């Protein structure tokens, strides 16, 4: 085989391996992150995954940041309940209903909200989220629109629920998926460093912290301004 052609083939093979996609997930996890699972064989990973579905009971007011299966069973009428979900900035939340036993006709409801809403204030705000507010609520009781699997648009989501009858309730599974270019983020921690990359999308994005912190902006790239490039990265400390 001619040496030139062999060199071309080698280059193509390297290029194909890079584009196969798996390396993107390693990059998304971050160079400094300690991920021992990557060293395991497929059999060991399967054995570990099979053992590891985390389960617990859901409280009326709850916050979940882990994957797993959560069950709410009303011991008494619970009329004002909500569970918040939060993941890492580079994650999306998926909610899968496994079992639902509520009386929709009797006034019970179970609604997923794409984001967080607190005292009427929404995150992301209406200006930043791609959907109108009414479409951010996914109602289990809504006729003709039973969605068993719901994915959030950012790293937070929440459910509102009301159960009148003791013994009624529901079970769902939370999973997290990678979000390559997070746009609206709530930080779980009061300290850290975050860089937001918005590739050629004309949209509003935001980064929120619910702690009192000092934010230092270090690098910013906002397109071209008189041929100058400005870079911003964010460092926040409590």
């Amino acid at each position, binding site marked *: 085989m001619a040496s030139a052609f062999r060199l071309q083939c080698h280059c*193509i093979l390297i*290029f194909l391996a890079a584009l196969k996609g798996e390396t993107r997930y390693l990059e998304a996890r971050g160079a400094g992150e300690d991920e021992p699972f990557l060293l*395991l064989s497929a059999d*060991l990973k399967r054995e*570990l995954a099979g053992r590891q579905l985390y389960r617990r009971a859901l409280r009326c007011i709850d916050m*979940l940041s882990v994957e797993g299966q959560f069950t709410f069973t009303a011991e008494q009428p619970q009329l004002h309940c909500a569970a918040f979900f939060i993941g890492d900035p580079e994650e999306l939340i998926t909610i899968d209903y496994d079992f639902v036993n509520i009386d929709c006709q009797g006034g019970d409801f179970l609604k997923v909200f794409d984001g967080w809403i607190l005292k009427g204030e929404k995150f992301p705000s209406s200006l930043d989220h791609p959907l109108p507010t009414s479409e951010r609520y996914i109602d289990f009781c*809504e006729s*003709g629109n039973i969605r068993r699997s719901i994915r959030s648009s950012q790293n937070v989501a929440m459910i509102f629920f009301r159960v009148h009858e003791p013994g009624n309730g529901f079970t769902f599974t939370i999973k997290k998926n990678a979000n390559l270019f997070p746009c609206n983020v709530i930080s*779980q921690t009061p300290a850290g460093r975050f860089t937001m990359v918005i590739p050629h999308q004309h949209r509003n994005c935001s980064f929120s912290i*619910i702690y009192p912190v000092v934010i230092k902006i270090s690098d910013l790239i906002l397109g071209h301004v008189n041929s100058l490039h400005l870079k911003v990265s964010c460092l926040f400390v409590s």
Partner: protein
Amino acid sequence: MKLQLLVSTGILLVALLPCHECRALTKSPAAAAASAPLPPGFPQPPPSLLPREAMEREKRSEEPPISLDLTFHLLREVLEMARAEQLAQQAHSNRKLMEIIGK
């Protein structure tokens, strides 16, 4: 030589075709949700109910959004509890991992 060049070009073109993941980034969540078919076994909404569904959506858009009157202080408290739970779960996973590796 020409054949080698054509083969190389063909392989490069296949490799550079846009991937499904990248396409998903340009598709809005609303469009994705609207275009996703219902899973098999779920009843398809009959056409006669669609106007009623549109009325329900309009009614919902006029209602005040459901919200919770939780203070930021309490929100931070439950967030701290969630982080502690996540750390405990991670420690448990690491312990299981070491047990498996030790076999």
